[in-house]
């Protein structure tokens, strides 16, 4: 089998792609978490306009394939902007990060919302009765607990985001699958090359799962005697 050949020939190339995969994933997760938080708070706000904006955003992102979103952002949106700014273009990495962040943001918003709703109402009441404002109650009491409830779903979404970077090969972003395609295009060693790519994803995601188990354990504070 040609594994040793692929490793000898293409490993630097693949690792270079993997580096971009990881960087784009990290950036998109970070930006997506911030977007998600704002969208979640908008969706839970009393203001109907904010709620509507958040709802439409989540609806569009969830209702369309990410592949199509990536094409619109990379090819479609610049065309619009070119009407005002001549020669405007996104590079593939920027368009990729925008796509992934917007995508993760929509799903993360719903994950946060689920976590917030899982915090018992009594927690809010206790904080408010002490004189904390609504926003302080949210920041100091509700969100930290909501985050804990959300960890398993958050990790799940991170995994999806990491894997979804591979879709961005269609807009020519030079992540690991894109690099692999370059290599097999001239050498035709499909099985070995793509297997190695798969193993790389598996390694990264396993690492993430180990990390999440550790975090979950760290966040475990109750459940000793309370039993409720």
């Amino acid at each position, binding site marked *: 089998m040609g594994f040793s050949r692929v490793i000898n020939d293409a490993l630097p190339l693949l690792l270079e792609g993997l580096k971009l995969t990881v960087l784009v994933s990290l950036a998109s997760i970070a930006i997506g978490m911030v977007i998600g938080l704002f969208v979640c708070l908008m969706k839970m706000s009393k203001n109907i306009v904010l709620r509507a904006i958040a709802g439409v955003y989540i609806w569009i992102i969830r209702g369309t394939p990410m592949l199509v979103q990536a094409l619109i952002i990379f090819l479609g949106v610049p065309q619009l902007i070119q009407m005002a700014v001549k020669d405007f273009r996104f590079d593939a990495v920027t368009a990729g990060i925008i796509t992934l962040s917007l995508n993760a943001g929509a799903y993360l918003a719903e994950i946060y919302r689920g976590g917030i709703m899982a915090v018992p109402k009594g927690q809010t*009441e206790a904080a408010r009765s002490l004189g904390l404002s609504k926003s302080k109650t949210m920041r100091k009491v509700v969100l930290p607990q909501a985050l804990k409830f959300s960890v398993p779903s958050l990790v799940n979404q991170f995994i999806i985001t990491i894997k979804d970077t591979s879709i961005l090969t269609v807009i020519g972003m030079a992540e690991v699958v894109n690099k692999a395609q370059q290599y097999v295009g001239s050498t035709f060693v499909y099985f070995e090359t793509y297997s190695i790519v798969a193993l790389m994803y598996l390694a990264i995601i396993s690492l993430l799962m180990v990390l999440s188990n550790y975090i979950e354990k760290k966040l475990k504070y109750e459940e000793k005697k309370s039993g409720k």
Partner: protein
Amino acid sequence: MASDNRKEKIVVTGLHKYFDKNEVLKGIDAVIYEGEVVCVIGPSGSGKSTFLRCLNKLEELTSGKIVIDDYDITDKKVDINKVRENIGMVFQQFNLFPNMTVKKNIMMAPVELKKMTKAEAEKKAVQLLSRVGLSDKAEAYPGELSGGQQQRVAIARALAMNPDIMLFDEPTSALDPEMVGEVLDVMKELAEEGMTMVVVTHEMGFAREVSDRVLFMADGGIMEEGSPERLFGNPQNERTQDFLKKVL
């Protein structure tokens, strides 16, 4: 009444509360005087807890007026958060913050609301914990405590803000019987120190022994009120007689 020359602490006039179309409070008028301990008793569904929760606006009232220390809390211009700083509340389900240690639970509000520095709040927490007999539990998490201990921490947490009114919403109803006493003892001490207290309770012994005045509520209204001796010894209202016959 002898209390007429005392300072009015809470004045409730014409309080109505609807949940959707269901009228839960049907026009309540009540005055709580400074330093007074008032127990609210009555059958479940009578609106006792809703009444109590209106006093710090955890429940939005439908109509009527509540004045606390000359602040009309039904006035939108009054900052309810400021008023709440002076009103401690203790809940049936304790509602301690499970992700914070006992000490952090107590320190959180005074520090966040800039009433005390961290060091001051810590000192206060230590002092309050010794007062409720839980000095050794400062670093424990609520989940590691018994119900009675949790409720005593909840009282300490409320007291950390130095409130001059304390509201208790059935503070012993979720407790195992053997833990009721320890919580009532802390409340009794508080009453003796002159705290203004409104206590919704099913503990008739406590109401009789500790309160200055008892309100009997049924069907969303105050049916009868009076000193514990009078109300328990010689109830006038038919509903009160009926209720007391069942619970005593």
